[in-house]
């Protein structure tokens, strides 16, 4: 039974890393949103499995928040924003796909090395979980760094936050209060950034943050 518990937790956490790679690879905005929804869905599954394994019912709430907000509300809202702004066709990466994927693989290897080395005496389940969570965080950061479009940077930020939740639920005894506050902070960030996007749109007629740079007189 123990082996199965471990394998399933491993499967979900690994799945999350895999979906992070899909996020990293995807360069169309609608598809990106769909994959982000998938990301949140896998996270919800993983958290729910942890709730079952740890016999911690409050983690179900976390899973529900992940599923409700991140897998449904936010992608739908962002979908509408993109529709209203009319930017769904834009493709916007800085580095080519190949190098980005290679860098992502390097990051996963790095987080494995770091995490497995510094936590030799921890619970193996938590260890693996932490290693995957760090990979997800790093991949989210990588996505924010390699994208020019504000929407995809928001998605990168939220996938990073998913990694944090994965880490938090992997460790036993994370209180719900913290989780709710984290969820709310993401929501607030989303609202702020949404308003920000509209502002940019009104002002500069684009959400490409390169336009902001042009306005500040940093290019040319």
């Amino acid at each position, binding site marked *: 039974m123990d082996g199965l518990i471990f394998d399933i937790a491993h499967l979900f956490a690994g799945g999350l890393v895999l979906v992070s790679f899909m996020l990293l690879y995807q360069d169309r905005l609608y598809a990106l949103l769909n994959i982000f929804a998938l990301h949140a869905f896998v996270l919800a599954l993983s958290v729910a499995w942890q709730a079952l394994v740890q016999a911690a019912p409050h983690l179900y709430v976390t899973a529900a928040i992940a599923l409700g907000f991140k897998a449904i509300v936010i992608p739908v809202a962002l979908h509408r924003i993109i529709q209203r702004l009319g930017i769904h066709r834009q493709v916007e990466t800085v580095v080519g796909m190949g190098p980005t994927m290679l860098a992502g693989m390097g990051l996963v290897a790095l987080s494995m090395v770091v995490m497995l080395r510094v936590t030799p005496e921890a619970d193996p389940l938590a260890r693996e979980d932490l290693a995957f969570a760090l990979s997800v965080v790093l991949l989210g950061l990588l996505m924010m760094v390699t994208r020019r479009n504000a929407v995809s940077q928001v998605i990168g930020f939220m996938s990073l936050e998913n990694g944090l939740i994965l880490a938090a639920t992997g460790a036993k005894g994370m209180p719900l209060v913290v989780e709710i506050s984290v969820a709310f902070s993401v929501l607030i960030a989303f609202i702020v950034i949404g308003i920000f996007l509209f502002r940019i749109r009104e002002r500069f007629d684009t959400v490409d943050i*390169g336009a902001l740079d042009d306005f500040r007189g940093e290019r040319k």
Partner: protein
Amino acid sequence: MTPAATSLLCVAALLATALVAVPFGRRARATPAIYGASLAATVVALAGALLHLVAGGTSEVVLPLGLPWLGAHFRLDALAAFFLVVVNFGGAAASLYGLGYGRHEEAPHRVLPFFPAFLGAMNLVVLADDAFSFLLCWEFMSLASWALVIAHHRATDNTRAGYIYLVMASFGTLALLLAFGLLAGPQGGYGFAAMRAAEHPPLVAALVLGLLILGAGSKAGLVPLHVWLPLAHPAAPSHVSALMSGVMTKVAIYGFVRVVFDLLSEPSWWSSMVVLALGGATAVLGILHALMERDLKRLLAYSTIENIGVVFVGLGLALAFRAEGMGWAAALALTAALFHVLNHSLFKSLLFFGAGAVLGATATRDMDRLGGLIHRMPRTSFAFLVGCAAISALPPLNGFASEWLAFQAILQSPQLSAWGLKIMVPAVGGLLALSAALAAACFVKAFGVTFLGRPRSDAAAAAHEVDRFSQAAMFILAGLCLAAGILPGFVIDAVAPVTQALVGDRMPRQTGVEWLSIVPIAEGRSSYNGLLVFLFITISASLAVVVIHRFASRALRRGPAWGCGFVEPSPMTQYSGVSFAQPIRRVFGTLAFRAREHVEMPPPGDMRPARLTVQMHDLVWDALYAPIAGAIGFAADRLNTLQFLTIRRYLSLVFLALVGLLLVLAIWP
């Protein structure tokens, strides 16, 4: 009440005075009130410290301030008492002088709050008995004096002086912070008692000594860390210059002595060679700079550097003798150093007061625009002359007594066993002798050009004598210069408990010696009697006066000055400070300042005058500070571009930093 508590109460009174001066500083009556209060507090503190120095013993106070687990420790032992005497005597004299001099201050509210705070901070540094209090008070002292340096911030170059001072002061405090960190060790024993008890391995001892040379040496003005001193000391009002030069540099020496002789385990003998070499170089370079100077207050500031060099030579000798186990010789050298500390605080304060009087009367510090002041300011010039004679180490004044003791210590060097020291100490003695001779030349120039001859400007011609408070301060100091010179035995005996505590030995008791002579080692080897010299000089001079006036002529005659055959009546044709220094510049300038003289001779028939231009470089500045300043400027220019990156680039920087740190974690063994 314990002596330490008395001193702390005086400090509290000074700090309270400083606070009162903040709101009331602009009022006319504030100046005498503040200086009067400072005078009272420093006199009480001086009396307490003197009594404690004579009575001996230590007294401690722990206040519930500062770090919660440490508290603020204050301790008054013989060393602290000696330096408290120096600090508070200088403070009292400056306050007395300020009673008169401060009346002409155009912005008293910029000076009044910081003056008592500066005095209180210097007292606190000497009293502090843990690293935290020491560093805090040290920094407080630096900042208070910085505020005084830029009191006249609109004057040319004062803000630059303040800036350089601030940079050097923070650098010095950083070095001291590291030194105390090493002394405290991994257990973090920040009380001085814990440091005294700890055993320091040789490497740590050498590092601490190096850091102390950087930290305390930069405050004291040790070459090559002296660059701020000749800028900052003259920039302050004159009584503050006297405090900074005469007293604050002594507080820096106190810090050095406290750590190196008291807290640190014995460093090895070769480390004393570093101190000796730096001391000798400081003495010679300081006085050479002083000789080249036209500005009276800058000349005095450079001469402070020379005297700090003399003191450091004494301290280096004491270190060397202590490392060799020659306690009596170490006591002699340390006594010489501490005696010179006292003497320098006396005559340098006196000279700065005199320079302040000249500045107040003529509004210029340029010696080549002064002259003839002896007729207009006779009392000031007499006091200044006494100070000049004392600082030039002329018997029977106090400068001679302490430098004589230093040379007595140097003469003990053949008994040292290490060959490096055997060769080095006489060489340093040569440097010391050179600097003493140059100092005499320097102060002949300072006095002669400023006070003798004919006035070189209208301001000098219209000068008038200063007020009575300033005169009183100068005459008290001049009297003490004479007293310490003819009765050095009392000072030596007063210092004995300090040397007993620091090097475990003392000089022979001097008060029992007949005719008030001083005998540093033994009767048969050397002795000096200041009183006898004084009596001889007085009697022979009086006799000469009597003989001349009796057998020659009673009348005072004023005749035309001999003008070398020229008839040009302009006072500018007199011997000037620059021309007085020219022979010495020719000898040493090419080496020490890369001095180049260039004569521009107009062709025949052209009526223009010929011009002589002299170019001099401060080699220390060119070789050490200019490259550092250039490198910092270059790095700042490069880093400046970081201020204008895109959001994504900033994120990338964060990301790269994170990945880099994780990599370090992964590779770390």
